[in-house]
């Protein structure tokens, strides 16, 4: 956090520089093993994500999407290249980054009730009362007002994933990394959660990077869709979507341009 304040204070007289991307990926490659067992997963990926932008990363399963996201979150270091959050090179998890995991039911702690789960990462930063206030506020913003006393295992999958999102919001993440977050909920719940994330992103000015195998979901939510393919995987296409700021599950997906974009991506993925 201090780094942000310092850069803001030390550059008021400098010439207007191009805006610093929220997340920058420079020539990132990832491989595992060596010699005959060398497994090259990702090769030469570069990407700038603007503050407030919604980016989706799509590609066939096993292409390395989750690995890439783990590099962004600082959980693993890339074999070559670098990742920056703002001006900070990512070497370990960055305070501005929150992750929403695929298996939400396992990332929530079953021995804590919902409000304690959301407040837990704030321990050491705020006193108990303030943690609770922030957690309740975050729960309210995902539509779980007054549900804080429940335990995760008393909730449906969709509600659990809302709790996980609330935890990221209470943490004051500016960048949300989401790894297949809606892969294991039913279609109706999935649409509700997608609209929730779209609303939160707009109202809070969040930068979101979503990994998904669902092309419709990627197109519906994103400003840009990054298509990964190949072995090792490279960026084969970055697609701008221009369906406007206010999208609707039925109308947007019926837009002819939506269908074209979908066909385009399916073609890139070899269908």
């Amino acid at each position, binding site marked *: 956090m201090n780094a942000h304040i310092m850069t803001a204070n030390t550059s008021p007289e400098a010439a207007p520089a191009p805006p610093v991307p929220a997340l920058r990926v420079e020539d990132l490659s990832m491989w595992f093993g060596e010699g005959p067992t060398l497994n090259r997963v990702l090769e030469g990926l570069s990407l700038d994500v603007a503050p407030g932008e919604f980016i989706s990363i799509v590609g066939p399963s096993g292409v390395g999407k989750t690995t890439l996201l783990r590099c962004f979150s600082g959980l693993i270091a890339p074999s070559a290249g670098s990742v920056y959050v703002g001006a900070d090179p990512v070497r370990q*998890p960055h305070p501005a980054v929150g992750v929403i995991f695929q298996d939400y039911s396992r*990332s929530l*702690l079953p*021995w804590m009730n919902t409000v304690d789960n959301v407040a837990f*990462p704030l321990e050491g930063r705020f006193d108990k009362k303030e943690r609770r206030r922030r957690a309740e506020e975050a729960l309210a913003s995902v539509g779980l007002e007054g549900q804080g006393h429940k335990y995760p*295992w008393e909730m449906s999958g969709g509600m659990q994933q809302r709790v996980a999102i609330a935890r990221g919001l209470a943490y004051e993440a500016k960048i949300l990394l989401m790894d297949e977050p809606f892969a294991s909920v039913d279609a109706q719940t999935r649409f509700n959660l997608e609209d929730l994330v779209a609303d939160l992103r707009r109202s809070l000015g969040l930068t979101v990077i979503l990994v998904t195998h669902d092309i419709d979901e990627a197109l519906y939510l994103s400003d840009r869709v990054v298509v990964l393919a190949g072995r090792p995987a490279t960026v084969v296409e970055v697609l701008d979507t221009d369906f406007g700021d206010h999208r609707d599950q039925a109308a947007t997906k019926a837009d002819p341009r939506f269908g074209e974009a979908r066909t385009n991506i399916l073609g890139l993925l070899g269908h």
Partner: protein
Amino acid sequence: MAILRRVLEKGWLIVLLVAVWWIASADSSNVFFPPLSTVVATLWRDLGNGLLIGYLGFSLGNLALGLLIALVVGIGLGLLIGEIRWLREAVTPFVDFARSVPQAAIVPLIVGTFGLGPGPKIYTIAFACVFPILLNTIDGVRGIEPTVRRFGRVYRITPWRYFRRVVLPGALPQIFAGIRVALPIGITVMVVSELYAANRGVGFYILNSSSTFQLAQTWAGAVLVGVIGYAIALLFFRIERVSLRWYFRSGAMAE
């Protein structure tokens, strides 16, 4: 009447076995198998005159302290060994070696070396009880979901807080399973440790009576140890239910 019915519904087998024992041994003149009525009368007498109460206090005090040491060492080391890979790799052979040593076999050594008094008995109980707790704690830590670990790192939970609020509660169901195994071992070793170089305690009572052919006392001591074991198991069950409420309730939820 309702209470009597409940007791019979759950405890019919115990009632039946005691009745069979009582009747079968009623006319026994065998010195090694005195009538149960005599055993109970002896137990009642020695509890009443304060002899056994004093011995029991000594023995249970040793058991409590031995268990306490085993809990602190077993859980503390188990959390560290389970969480830290290089430590686990270095320590595992020693753990496997030490836990293969039969605890009863080293009792004479420890007691012989360190002499009378409660100290060596407490250490022996602790040594015997530490392994099931330690091994289960390690397993419990290892069983924590990788996603939970990633969550802790991404949300920058400090190591001490992560240990206390994530690893410990996450491993707690397994830790309790380890304590459940350790309790009867502790009771056995408590008795065995008093068979050597002791001048009081329940184990001493059993050995002393046996060597002076007071077999009713031997039986009384054995029955008493059994009853204590049962009472401790009941108490443990209550503590486990309260401490792991989330675990039992979430498990019931998943069914």
